[in-house]
């Protein structure tokens, strides 16, 4: 039972008494505000929210939310969240992580939580740089990125987070942008609604160390041409005049000019459940000459890990009866003295 009944929860109920310490103007503020706005609408008693984070700028998130929260260690939030969800499956567990935290030091735990499909929501604040350690390149920084640790430009090929998540067996893969508030709000709700691990990558501007990394996606004049907003059952069109769309040419995604080199019927209709489309769409991350897909890239229904585990426990009890320690100890060969 909640003290504050769920219907009366408001954004304010989720604001903690701690001062927010991100740099003024950081993209994290907008995401925090959206989460605080969405939580009261989810129909979950306040005490059932648990936010778990690792280390990095984004990972300060739990301190600013008046929910249960755990600021853990670098890269390990998903592993801690796994134990928490298994211990208490009634909780609504949210992991807040960054590109260094999830893609680098926590890469192993990241792929394994997706594979297991626990009903946990992962918010990856991707700013393509290390902020808290003051500006080194990250596993999602583009090749050639100049930073303190790559003065001549990085030679690493970056990770493509949605594709990595798909490869790991993720069942909900989506992307949002810190500046697209309404869209983000929607995605947070969808992530919550999905039963299984939801992976939501959020492009987040770090103006101190990587300003403008996503400017082409957020600047008013550009974004109509660069964002491919995915909507289930709708054709994948974009552009100021909605005159461009994605079509298949010899098995590859191509941009078609509707009415010029292709017809409206040639444009692909977005189907979240189509994994091949999901893979092709995720391939468009930072790809020259292509728009960047935003929205739900892939979604699949599959029983979550903790449900399967609880079923096993229930079944074991059904078959063997609830365990009794005295009889367990006395099981097998015994003798009396």
């Amino acid at each position: 039972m909640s003290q504050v009944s769920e219907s009366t929860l408001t954004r304010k109920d989720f604001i903690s008494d701690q001062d927010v310490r991100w740099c003024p103007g950081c993209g994290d503020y907008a995401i925090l505000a959206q989460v605080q706005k969405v939580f009261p609408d989810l129909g979950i008693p306040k005490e059932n929210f648990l936010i778990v984070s690792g280390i990095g700028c984004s990972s300060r998130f739990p301190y600013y939310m008046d929910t249960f929260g755990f600021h853990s260690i670098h890269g390990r939030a998903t592993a801690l969240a796994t134990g928490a969800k298994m211990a208490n499956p009634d909780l609504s567990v949210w992991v807040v992580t960054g590109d260094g935290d999830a893609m680098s030091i926590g890469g192993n735990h990241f792929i394994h939580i997706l594979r297991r499909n626990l009903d946990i929501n992962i918010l990856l604040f991707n700013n393509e740089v290390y902020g808290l350690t003051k500006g080194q390149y990250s596993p999602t920084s583009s090749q050639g990125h100049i930073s303190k640790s790559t003065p001549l430009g990085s030679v690493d090929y970056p990770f493509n987070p949605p594709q990595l998540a798909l490869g790991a067996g993720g069942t909900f893969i989506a992307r949002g942008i810190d500046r697209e508030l309404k869209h983000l709000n929607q995605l947070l709700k969808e992530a919550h609604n999905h039963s299984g691990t939801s992976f939501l990558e959020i492009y987040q501007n770090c103006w101190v160390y990587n300003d403008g990394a996503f400017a082409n996606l957020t600047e008013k004049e550009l974004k109509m041409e660069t964002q491919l907003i995915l909507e289930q059952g709708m054709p994948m069109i974009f552009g100021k005049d909605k005159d461009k769309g994605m079509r298949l040419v010899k098995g590859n995604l191509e941009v078609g000019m509707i009415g010029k080199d292709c017809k409206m019927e040639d444009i692909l209709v977005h189907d979240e459940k189509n994994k091949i489309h999901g893979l092709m769409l995720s391939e468009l991350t930072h790809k020259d000459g292509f728009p960047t897909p935003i929205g739900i890239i892939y979604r699949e229904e599959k029983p979550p890990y903790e449900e399967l585990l609880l079923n096993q426990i229930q079944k074991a009890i059904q078959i063997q009866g609830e365990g009794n320690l005295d009889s367990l100890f006395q099981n097998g060969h015994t003798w009396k003295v």
Partner: protein
Amino acid sequence: MSENIKKIKEVEKVVIRFAGDSGDGMQLTGSQFTETTAVMGNDLATFPDFPAEIRAPAGSLAGVSSFQIQFSSDIIQTPGDDLDVLVAMNPAALKTNLQDLKQSGIIIANKANYSKKNLKLAGWETNPLEDDTLMGYQLIALDMTKIVSHAVEDMNLTSKTVSRSTNMFALGLMFWLYDRSMDSTISFLNKKFAKRPELVESNIRALKSGYHYGDTVEAIQSSYKVPKAKFERGLYRNIMGNQAVCYGLMAASQKSKCRLFYGGYPITPASDILHILSNHKNFKVKTFQAEDEIAAIMSVIGAAYCGSLGITATSGPGIALKSEAMGLAVVTELPLVIVNVQRGGPSTGMPTKTEQADLLQALFGRNGEAPIPVIAASTPVDCFNAAFESARIAMEYMTPVVLLSDAYVANGSEPWLIPSMEDLPEIETHIKKDGTKFQPFKRNEEQLARDWGLPGTPGMEHRVGGLEKDEHTGNVSYDPINHHRMTELRYEKINKIADSIPEIVPHGAKSGDILVLGWGSTYGAIRTAVNEAIKDGKSVAHAHLSYLNPFPKNLGEILLKYRYILIPEMNFGQLLMLIRNKYLINAKGLNKVHGKPFTVSEIYSGINDIIGD
């Protein structure tokens, strides 16, 4: 059936070692002998010793696997030093184990395996069964494979299946030699091969032909009888260390009314804990095989935050990986038990062999000042108490606890006086449910333990994490004085545990020449050696530490009552360093890292080296 005209001699204790190739089934043979011996009412202790390789090259020295058991009509503490009987199924087994056999001890060898090739592999230039290498021993060399093939002749089995059941022949012969019944093994075979009746039949025939061989063959003049031991009254069973750890933790979970959550990653010699707990889902035990050691402990921290009794078990290399997370558990003050089944190190070291070289790692192996209570199990049976006690301290003091065991106690077994759940104490937790403004780092006076507010409880919303906390509000704080105070508090809390643990009572002389101070699995060898020294009129005592952090309150006082303190350890002097440092006394070490437990005689000569014969 056969008119037994052979003599039966009564003996007090016997040490047997079954040794053979990894594929010869020696562990199974040994554990079957153990089961039967336990039911016969002898006291016993076992020492399984096997290679790290799953299938080392057949016939090689590296591939020898052995199982030692001592059983007695007296109470015993170790699997024994010197062997009365060595079952050497192949030349490599004879080569690696002969040095442990007593003068005039019995060797039982399967001739069939002493081929030219195998002799060469084991480094024998001539066949020791045929020359005078084994003079002075009682050699019983026979072609077990041939006898077993005769026994199953009508069954049309492959020669592989036949040679695989020769271990049952050896077991049958040992059953006859020591006057044990075959019933328990027969019912075991019926169960094990329930789906393959031909294997049940062939193994039982092999077992029986071994038994009858003893009866009929002239080479063996007498069999032996070991009368029942005088145990404390009660119901007994045999138990292995890792199993006892699991039962102790499950008992603590029930007594604290906190669900047991286990997160682990496969590692020798701790994996059995994962296997055993996974097998008890009907106790609502939740087990999680994580992707790595770090995830294992992190999942446990997450579960502990949500109100579970969190357990992880590993061995030294795994602890190294978990150390950052252990620090997180220290600073967030959450109850978990971290079991370290120690093995030979450093690095991968000797995975299946025993050692006690992780004591300092348990105490100090973390960044920052991160005190953790450390408890050590001294025998397979003691694993139950040590595990229960570790969980009690974790819950009552809101702290991670390290439980040290090692390959020797984990795989060893002995008779266990089965406790009744009713007799075990309740464990109090610090769970708070009142829902008023919750302060996560408010402490009680008695234990300095913080309150435990569980997700899902209305009004208890709060944040914890790895950053330093304000002493009063629990909010993040970088205040210098506060950090100093919090560090002090974390130490004070652990030191307070000494109020809740028993004082140490030495066994033997209350004061005198020498106190042998031990911890962990050296218990049996020390206790036996000290008892012998006392019998020989020496002024000696034994004190054994179950609590390595904090120490029992009276330890310093006790140490001053003896002229010499001798500390035997399977490391290069780790407890020694702690004792010298804390009590400023000139304690002496007795150290070995052979991957094998101390023998009684090694401890005894350690005592003699100090105070003379």
